[in-house]
């Protein structure tokens, strides 16, 4: 297993946001994470990327515990992420945003970084927008920039928090094609959290479902989505 999360737990005062969540991600695997609002998906991601300390449990990459590693060091271990709400640096151009994504992992000259970023800009078809500020770009393009920034460090594992939010089906499929192409090329693993179950099942090889902070189902998409607990957590009643 590339990533192992064991008995993750997070409390906020008396509220248990995530409780006893365990799952793993294999090398090059695409794992989808589903669940209703407030089910603890983003809290899980925040713990696994060390932006939020876990109240309990363990997380390992390549068998090594990284539960006490500072968040800024994860990129050097090959772990990158995007955020639920677009969080591009608004005063940095598209090129600078992407460069920032790779400069911590690749300690090399500005010229070498520029070549690396050139390739990502070409991959995302961002040549015409590379010197623009993010605010001047359409939403879908900003999402592509954010994904390109996360991929810039050539990570082994990328957490994508609602990458398809606010996108049309066509745009979402475009992102899926991009991610699948990159996975083929680099062998990276992806953990994708999203509400767009249709798109998610099209790209993820396996799903985990959370409800009220607990992992309630895990496995093939069809089995997880037909699980009564998952359905109940989504619609609030038995169907």
């Amino acid at each position, binding site marked *: 297993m590339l990533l192992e999360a064991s008995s993750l737990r997070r409390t906020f005062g008396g509220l248990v946001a995530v409780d006893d969540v365990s799952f793993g991600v294999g090398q090059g695997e695409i794992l989808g994470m589903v669940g209703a609002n407030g089910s603890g998906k983003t809290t899980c991601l925040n713990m696994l990327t060390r932006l939020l300390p876990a109240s309990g449990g363990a997380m390992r990459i390549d068998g090594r515990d990284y539960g006490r590693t500072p968040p800024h060091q994860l990129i050097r271990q090959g772990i990158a992420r995007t955020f639920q709400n677009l969080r591009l640096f608004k*005063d940095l151009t598209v090129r600078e945003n992407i460069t920032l994504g790779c400069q911590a992992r690749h300690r090399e000259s500005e010229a070498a970084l520029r070549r690396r970023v050139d390739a990502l800009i070409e991959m995302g078809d961002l040549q015409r927008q590379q010197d623009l500020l993010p605010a001047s770009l359409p939403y879908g393009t900003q999402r592509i920039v954010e994904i390109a920034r996360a991929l810039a460090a050539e990570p082994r594992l990328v957490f994508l928090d609602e990458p398809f939010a606010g996108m049309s089906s066509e745009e979402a499929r475009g992102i899926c094609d991009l991610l699948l192409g990159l996975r083929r090329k680099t062998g990276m693993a992806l953990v994708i959290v999203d509400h767009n179950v249709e798109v998610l099942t099209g790209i993820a090889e396996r799903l985990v479902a959370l409800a009220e902070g607990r992992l309630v189902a895990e496995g093939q998409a069809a089995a997880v989505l037909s699980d009564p607990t998952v359905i109940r957590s989504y619609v609030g009643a038995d169907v």
Partner: protein
Amino acid sequence: MGAEWTATLMLCGIYSMTAIATQLGMMCGAFSLAPIGWMAIGAYAAALGATRWMVGGFEALLIALAVAALLGPVVMLPVRRISGLYFALVSLAFVLVIQSVVSHLEYTGGALGIFGVPLDTDLPVVVAALVLSAAAAAFLSSGRRGRALRAAGQDAIVAQAMGVDVFRLQLAVGAVGAVIAAASGFLYAGYIGYVDPTQFGFSLVVQIIVMVIVGGRGSWVGAIIGACFITMLPLVLRPLAEWRDVFNGALLIAVVLLLPGGLVEMAKLTLRRARPAPAAALRPSLANEESR
């Protein structure tokens, strides 16, 4: 050049250094007012060096800079737990504690301060110090460091996820800012010839904030422009000299409402009109242009 203009230019340079130190903190997401406290420490080092320690000006300067370099990061430590306005208030407390300590200690002359500081500061020295300070700011805000600095200032959480050690960066900026501000205080004492606690109080805090905001947030060039603008203004508007704080407050509100990017943004807009370019591609501040 008349004596009045020479004196004003020296003050422009000295305040520019303090404004640069304050601006650097804001650029990396640590809105620290501590540079005003470090300015006081630099000024008192000059005064104590000449009147109590009986050491040369250079030795006193070295002592002030060493203390600032060592303790600048320490004053920045609370940024690990608090940020934004709360951190600004903590750093303001540092300024007020320094002011309170020097005004109560007999050793530092108490409320009367210390007279007899040698008038060693002249325009070439101020210009050289300002050039060095600007070079340090340019070094910190360009290339790899500059991207990390601006990212930390805009969104510390995302910057960390991108591999930026935000806290270490803020400590480094705390050290550099403290050294620049202490040097500016040292020059100030050598310019004015005496130090007293009222010189480094809340009024100066407001003045430096106005300089930074009016010049343009996120740009060390803006800090220099703002400092020069605010320092020179009394020459042009002599009748308002007694109303300086009121005028500064009104100017601050006007700039925030009408020109959020400050004077540096206005200069950029003027340049843009003079040389047409794809509008959307332009950045909000000249500092960003420089970092390329």
